[in-house]
């Protein structure tokens, strides 16, 4: 009978994690009041700089939940920015764009696109949740070591 010691399991897990697969994660929690503040002060100027036409059309069609929806989308962009480790980047739609409502797809541009390529990230998955006060988003990416454009 082969005995598997905890040390052996630990070593195997570390090896597998290090050489076979790496996962990058970004998370954000955002206050709905911040988005309400921005909507009240800047209206369409805020909407068009941060959100895309699809998102703006969605909130026009669902005005009762507009701030909650937008907070979730902002949190999603911020989670992607954190995943990519873009320090102090402002997650405008020009940097991180999202499409779809039920199933959200990420599109990167500019600095975000460069960072994803450099890290060897080929896909980013998002999960977004909303409450009345806060919205949260988690972004997860599989890092393809063979596709990596630079050091991890």
């Amino acid at each position: 009978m082969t005995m598997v010691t905890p040390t052996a399991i630990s070593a195997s897990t570390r090896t597998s994690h290090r050489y076979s697969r790496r996962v990058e994660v970004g998370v954000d929690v955002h206050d709905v009041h911040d988005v309400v503040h921005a909507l009240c002060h800047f209206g369409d100027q805020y909407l068009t700089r941060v959100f895309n036409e699809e998102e703006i059309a969605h909130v026009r069609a669902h005005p009762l939940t507009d701030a909650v929806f937008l907070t979730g989308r902002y949190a999603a962009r911020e989670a992607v920015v954190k995943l990519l480790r873009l320090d102090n980047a402002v997650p405008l739609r020009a940097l991180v764009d999202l499409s779809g409502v039920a199933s959200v797809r990420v599109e990167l541009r500019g600095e975000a696109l460069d960072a994803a390529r450099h890290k060897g990230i080929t896909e980013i998955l998002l999960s977004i949740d909303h409450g009345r006060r806060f919205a949260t988003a988690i972004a997860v990416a599989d890092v393809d070591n063979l596709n990596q454009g630079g050091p991890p």
Partner: protein
Amino acid sequence: MSSITDDIREILLSHGQMSVAISTLDDDADLYQNGLTSHASVNVMLALENNFDIEFPIQCCENQRSSPWPPLPRPLKSWN
């Protein structure tokens, strides 16, 4: 008559939601290190645009999208 610096400090006070008193910050202080969040920085950017009648350029170049992201799967890449 207020200076540009005074106007910027006023905007930071109104929209920056900073965790420190604006009056205690030097002109070259790192705002993020002093509690400016990314969302508040959007508000500050928009307020500066309105106050000074300017528009900040978005650092997004269409020509950087010449190759697709997500990248093509490796087997497809090798055929291109």
